[in-house]
């Protein structure tokens, strides 16, 4: 005690102690912020990777940059109430805001049949908690972690010299990520439908539904297209124009509302919930939760409703919870960063590639 007393009675030592305490505080702050760990994957580094691979596209989403806004409604059957207490599943009609898009950070990419298609939806039950989800037309996700996604971005990026991805990089990537090799073999066997209207969109990540009794079950969900019209009444997408998928979608919505059935797949206790690259067995129980009807379409420009929405997969109502899938946090974090970046660029954004001609609306209205 006396030694300690003598030590801190020395002014220089006391000042040094104060300096150390302050430096420690600053060090801890910086450590948590990732300042001293350049290898750590952060939101900044993920956003920088998108910019490096795709180039700057001010005002657009970092991923799924090419898209179009839609609105409609959800008719709930009430059948999902047994597994989730979320207000959106009560019998009734709920307004929906959505966005169809293509995967990739290039807002002016040419529509191709094999490019992954997406449907993002926001369910807005009146006076109750909303639900946002973003779904893809592939059966499983290609990666199961943020690191996998980051590595995949660079492995699949076109080589500036050839304009095509470097096969050596892809081989190295698949060697380091065997889960992706397995997932890609499942994805490559899928049937690719002709357009957005007949695509099945899968949630891919697992979530948990909680019912009013507090019982929690693992779930995944899908939107299954409904053949509501004979084919000859619908304009079929044909790969000719650079926006052929979107133009066909717009023409179809102008003629007739498009519909998808929301199917909830209830997993067994030992089904993987933390790995979006692994499918669940086909025999799992499905619940027909209701029908999504899309009847309006608008370009992203001019104040369309989907432009201001971040389709964050963790915006969930009471009754739907995140699972232990690490991709959910990763997606939520990177979507938020993408949203923040583009929110600061709204005045720099050039018009989106997909335009919705208002005259076509009048011309084809029944």
């Amino acid at each position, binding site marked *: 005690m006396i030694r300690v*007393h003598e030590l*801190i*009675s020395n*002014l220089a030592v*006391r*000042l040094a*102690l*104060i300096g150390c*305490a*302050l430096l420690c*505080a*600053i060090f*801890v*702050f910086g450590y*948590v*912020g*990732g300042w001293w760990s350049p290898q*750590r*994957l*952060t*939101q*900044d580094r*993920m956003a920088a990777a998108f910019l490096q691979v795709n180039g700057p596209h001010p005002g657009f989403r970092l991923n799924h940059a090419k898209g179009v806004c839609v609105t409609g409604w959800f008719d709930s059957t009430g059948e999902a109430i047994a597994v989730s207490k979320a207000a959106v599943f009560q019998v009734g009609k709920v307004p929906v805001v959505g966005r169809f898009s293509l995967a990739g950070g290039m807002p002016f990419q040419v529509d191709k049949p094999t490019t992954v298609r997406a449907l993002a939806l926001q369910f807005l039950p009146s006076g109750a*908690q*909303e639900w946002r989800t973003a779904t893809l037309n592939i059966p499983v996700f290609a990666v199961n972690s*943020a690191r996998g996604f980051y590595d995949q971005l660079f492995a699949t990026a076109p080589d500036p010299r050839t304009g095509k991805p470097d096969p050596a990089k892809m081989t190295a990537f698949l060697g380091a990520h065997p889960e992706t090799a397995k997932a890609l073999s499942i994805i490559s066997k899928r049937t690719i439908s002709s357009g957005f209207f007949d695509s099945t969109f899968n949630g891919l990540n697992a979530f948990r539904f909680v019912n009013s009794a507090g019982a929690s079950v693992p779930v995944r969900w899908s939107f299954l297209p409904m053949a509501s019209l004979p084919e000859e009444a619908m304009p079929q997408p044909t790969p000719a124009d650079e926006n052929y998928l979107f133009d066909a979608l717009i023409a179809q919505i102008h003629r007739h509302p498009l519909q998808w059935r929301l199917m909830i797949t209830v997993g067994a206790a030992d089904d993987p919930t933390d790995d979006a690259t692994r499918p669940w067995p086909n025999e799992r129980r499905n619940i027909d939760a209701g029908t999504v009807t899309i009847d309006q379409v608008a370009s992203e420009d001019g104040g369309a409703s989907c*432009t*201001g*929405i*971040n389709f*964050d997969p*963790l*915006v969930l109502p*009471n009754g739907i919870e*995140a699972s*232990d899938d*690490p991709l*959910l*946090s*990763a997606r*939520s*974090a*990177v979507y938020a960063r993408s*949203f*923040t970046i*583009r*929110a*600061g660029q*709204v*005045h720099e954004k050039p018009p989106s590639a997909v335009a919705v001609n208002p005259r076509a609306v009048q011309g084809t209205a029944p």
Partner: protein
Amino acid sequence: MIPDRARFPAFSRLLHWLMAVMILAMLLIGIGMAASVSERYRVLVSIHRPLGIAILILVVVRLVNRLFNPAPSLPATMSALEKLGAKGSHVLLYILMAVLPLVGWGMLSAARYPIVLFGGLHLPPILPHNLSLYSGLRQLHTVLAFLLFATFIAHFGAALFHGLVRRDGVLESMAPSLRNLLQSEHRDRQSHD
């Protein structure tokens, strides 16, 4: 000699240390979640929002408490400039403690994120849905958070300086446990002189 100084009342000290822990946790959670893409992100966000609102409520309680229980006067050994610095930095701390949660609430409103406190409990939006407004407030939130951290560092450094170098009772006025320890030690030293 030991200055005969009044201590902060027990309730003021309780509020101070409770909020000190909450605000430090909040600063670390904030910088951590703004960087993270790991599973911690979800957990940190779910703590950040209700903790921010709790701080907003407590700062109101604290301001009211301060009206009824003013701070003890600063020691006469401090120069006018030092006193101005002390007063100014405390005013800044109070402003930041109140404004940061409000900017956070406002920016989530402008982005139309649900403002989730706990599972069933959401706060209403306080600003219109506007991306440019969101962007401005989001940047302001970061700038103010760094300013709060810098002010905390100054506050922490000044407190240690009062306690270890000046030994003028200012640190002890807020820290009862340290007060006993340091004052008894101080007395020992005085008796040896």
